[in-house]
């Protein structure tokens, strides 16, 4: 048993013990004990993941644990990356949870017992090495997360609705994965991944495609990819904030993990054929649509956590674009570029986990302080909550793909991979055949346009979230009464912030880990070294491309300091006459109010008004709903008493796609009601006729 095994074993033992502790401890000591225990579980996961990334893979088979299939775990570098990310997010979230649970009435036994189990289930999913194990862990993760989403169902009615959506969607996804993997396993000797890998070599192409699409549906719905995203912007906001962070930064990643595991690793041989190219075009297309649609909805959203949820859909879309490009390159026989694109996608997973956990935790801190997540009612938090404001700003910078932010590096890497997709671009290898270049010529501009559009909209979205939510004046009484969060919550956010800064400035430190993960995912068609790591400069391997986020940040800092110094020197020289007030300080002056008296908070721009121009631009896409109610005076129809104006931006895909299905189900239910009259005799009759019909069928079919 090596270090990886020790780490994984420790995670299991600590996780289960923590759950038991949560069961037996009195409610006062429960949050702290469970928080610390879960953080240790996460830390053990990080250890296991890091050891696996360092090349110490670990395998264990426990045939007696689960009847029929047995349990089999194996942690390689690819799984290790996801285990490490999940563990790291869990550490930050559970430290945060100590303070958060205390103040939000989340100390109840149920929530505290399920929380460590959820983390544990997520840590075990990437370690599963057989279909049965994967499905059990996956279902365990879905159930525990469902219970956590429902934690606050007594406070708000929406929680129950969100839970219903999540329960149905996650189980439909489970069904899709089950179908796909069972179909796959039917062609193999047993259900272990080793057997599946061997079976992939003789898999008929149709079966390979069916397996891929079925698993893509299942894993994609977990990753929140459009059009299977409907649960995500509901469940993520309604869950308690530390759970939202775990779901949004860790759980969605496992959907990506599933796609990589099945598409690149298990089906590795089939994916290389030209017949499999449409798989990757499909992935790329889904990713592009998700990226643009997700960020567009985020830009329109006024609910802080819903905004972050949609942004998760966007980022997973970008990851899928990377995966699709990697698969496409691999099927075209360009291992270097495939490795680069896959590396970029994995780096984006890492970066997204860092900034999204920070953002969700900071949103939780805001919720804790004000009790609202409505951006239109927030504002002015920077004076009362300086630390939270700063940390949210850091996360927003990371999310908006601007340097020196976190997401900038991975999106840059992704674009580099796409740029070198052109055959004559001085790339590493040449393409053959005309069909290949047509596929690329269509796919690449679409991918680039999607990345570019989502980058632009992300900037607007996060300026809105940070500028409207935290700066300016408070827009409501709750925002005015805001106060800074307790130290444990700040510590949780601080941990996530450190990860953000490290990834933004020194992405080179995680590159060796990424390289080994890419190598583990790939067959020979995926190059194993996406980039060479100098300490400071990111230099791509095999193709031209350098970037140094650290020197960029330092240059920016030096530039700002130099400007400040020069401006001060010039000002001081010019003002020697004594224009400077006593003490040389800055004079405080009134804001320009057009001479109309002091400005009130009601005159400020709100999140809705901030996004209004963008909403108008994308009117045809988002299709907002507007209601205008005009009330007239009783005495005269010509005198208007009140005008009420309401505008909502509903999720259009959801309305078009899901509403008919829901209506159909409701209709079926209404029809069925006529059959169920309540009479016991009738029900017995139904049973009798059914048995007769079954017997008849058997008799005829035999």
């Amino acid at each position, binding site marked *: 048993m090596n270090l990886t095994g020790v780490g994984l074993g420790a995670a299991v033992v600590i996780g289960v013990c923590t759950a038991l502790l949560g069961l037996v401890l009195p409610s006062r000591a429960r949050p702290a004990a469970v928080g610390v225990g879960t953080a240790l579980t996460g830390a053990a996961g990080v250890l296991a993941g890091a050891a696996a990334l360092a090349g110490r893979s670990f395998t264990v088979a426990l045939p007696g644990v689960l009847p029929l299939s047995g349990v089999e775990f194996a942690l390689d570098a690819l799984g290790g990356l996801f285990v490490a990310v999940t563990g790291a997010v869990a550490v930050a979230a559970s430290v945060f949870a100590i303070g958060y649970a205390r103040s939000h009435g989340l100390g109840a036994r149920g929530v505290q017992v399920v929380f460590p189990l959820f983390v544990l289930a997520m840590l075990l999913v990437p370690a599963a090495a057989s279909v049965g194990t994967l499905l059990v862990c996956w279902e365990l993760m879905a159930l525990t997360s469902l219970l956590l989403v429902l934690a606050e169902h007594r406070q708000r009615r929406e929680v129950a609705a969100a839970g219903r959506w999540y329960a149905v969607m996650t189980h439909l996804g489970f069904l899709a994965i089950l179908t796909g993997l069972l179909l796959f396993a039917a062609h193999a000797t047993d259900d272990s991944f080793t057997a599946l890998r061997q079976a992939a070599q003789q898999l008929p192409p149709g079966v390979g495609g069916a397996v891929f699409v079925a698993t893509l549906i299942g894993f994609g719905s977990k990753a929140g990819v459009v059009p299977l995203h409907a649960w995500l912007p509901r469940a993520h906001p309604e869950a308690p904030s530390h759970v939202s962070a775990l779901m949004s930064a860790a759980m969605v990643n496992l959907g990506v993990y599933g796609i990589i595991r099945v598409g690149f690793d298990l089906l590795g041989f089939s994916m290389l054929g030209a017949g499999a190219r449409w798989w990757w075009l499909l992935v790329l297309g889904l990713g592009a649509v998700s990226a643009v649609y997700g960020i567009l909805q985020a830009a329109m959203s006024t609910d802080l956590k819903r905004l972050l949820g949609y942004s998760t859909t966007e980022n997973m879309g970008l990851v899928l674009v990377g995966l699709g490009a990697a698969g496409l390159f691999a099927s075209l026989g360009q291992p270097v570029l495939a490795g680069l694109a896959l590396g970029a996608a994995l780096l984006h997973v890492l970066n997204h986990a860092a900034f999204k956990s920070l953002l969700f935790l900071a949103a939780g801190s805001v919720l804790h302080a004000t009790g609202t997540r409505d951006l239109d009612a927030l504002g002015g938090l920077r004076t009362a909550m300086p630390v939270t404001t700063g940390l949210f700003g850091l996360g927003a910078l990371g999310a908006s793909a601007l340097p020196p932010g976190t997401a900038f590096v991975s999106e840059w890497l992704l674009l580099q991979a796409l*740029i070198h997709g*052109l055959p004559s671009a001085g790339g590493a290898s040449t393409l053959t055949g005309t069909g290949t270049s047509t596929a690329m010529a269509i796919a690449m501009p679409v991918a680039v346009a999607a990345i570019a559009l989502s980058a632009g909209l992300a900037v607007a979205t996060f300026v809105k979230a940070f500028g409207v939510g935290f700066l300016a004046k408070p827009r409501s009484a709750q925002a005015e009464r805001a106060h800074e969060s307790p130290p444990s919550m700040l510590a949780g956010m601080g941990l996530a912030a450190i990860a953000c800064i490290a990834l933004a400035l020194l992405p080179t430190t995680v590159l060796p880990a990424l390289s080994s993960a890419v190598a583990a995912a790939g067959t020979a068609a995926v190059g194993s070294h996406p980039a060479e790591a100098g300490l400071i400069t990111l230099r791509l391997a095999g193709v031209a491309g350098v970037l*140094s986020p650290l020197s960029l940040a330092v*240059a920016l800092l030096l530039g700002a300091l130099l400007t400040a110094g020069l401006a001060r020197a010039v000002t001081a020289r010019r003002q020697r006459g004594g*224009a400077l007030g006593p003490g040389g300080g800055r*004079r405080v002056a009134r804001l320009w109010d057009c001479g109309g008296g002091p400005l009130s908070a009601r005159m400020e721009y709100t999140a809705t008004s901030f996004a209004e*121009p963008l909403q108008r631009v994308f009117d045809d896409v988002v299709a907002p709903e507007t209601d205008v109610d005009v009330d007239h005076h009783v005495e005269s129809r010509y005198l208007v008493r009140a005008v009420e104006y309401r505008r909502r931006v509903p999720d259009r895909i959801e309305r078009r796609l899901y509403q008919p299905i829901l209506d159909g189900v409701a209709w079926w239910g209404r029809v069925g009601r006529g059959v169920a009259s309540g009479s016991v005799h009738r029900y017995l009759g139904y049973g009798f006729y059914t048995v007769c019909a079954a017997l008849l069928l058997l008799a005829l079919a035999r």
Partner: protein
Amino acid sequence: MSALGWAGGITQPVLIVAGSPVLVGMMRQVRARLEGRAGPGIAQPWRDLRKLFGKEAITPRGTSEVFRFAPLVQVATVGVVAVVAPFITAASALGAVADLFAVVALLALGTVALALAGLDTATAFGGMGASREMTIIALVEPTLLVAIFALSVRVGSTNLTDIVSATLRDPARMVSPVSLLAAVALVVVVVAETGRLPVDNPSTHLELTMVHEAMVLEYAGPDLALVELAAAMRLSVFLGLLANLFVPWGIATTATPLAVLVGILALAVKVGLLGAALAAGEVFLAKLRLFRVPELLAGSFLLALLAVAASFFLA
């Protein structure tokens, strides 16, 4: 880091800081003459800056550090671009930063800082300006990225110095459909990014129409001077990039004083010509309605996308 890079890293920021107010003055002068006015002379922006730096610094009530530091961030972002991008010399002082995506994102960062400052003032004007600027940038950023992509996909690198030297080696490259489409898209985008007509009127203070001016309405004294300087530098940097991406002639490829001098002159002439053309064009244009601007930008986005598609299909 080569001697050529050093030469560029030192001369470029100096030239751009010193020259950009002159460029703005020159453009105003061209406009004034074409409109039949005498005009204040090309040194007027420098005189304005001098005056503003002499005034006392003012903090509007209720604003925070975001408001205080935004002008610094903006000047710093443009300054870093002025140091690293190849304007006068074909080598960069900091090669690992002279990436086109990084440069564009840096310039966007400056805009974001100002937009946050506008929101921080808690006035309706600040929010209005920030909201409009963000709407425009949300459409401009994609166009810029896609146009850049079209340019760099044939060179196989997004590094500015690589693109410039590739164009220097093979001047026929720039008459290809890809370059022409990208050039048109970039011109529209540069006009929008620098807040010129028909997207934004730099000389208006009418609340219904202003974008950039609304964000910076609360700035006064030295802070305002920095904002104005940064805006002028942005204009020069964008025009310089536009010039050197398509017509890099005259750029210094050796570190001799003569070559650098030629580089300085070439940049001044190219940017001056572009600026004069822009100013002359503005005389004949009226500002577009705010909600017509996205149509213009969407058009340029399509052009950029066509450029990318062309670069793949014509390869």
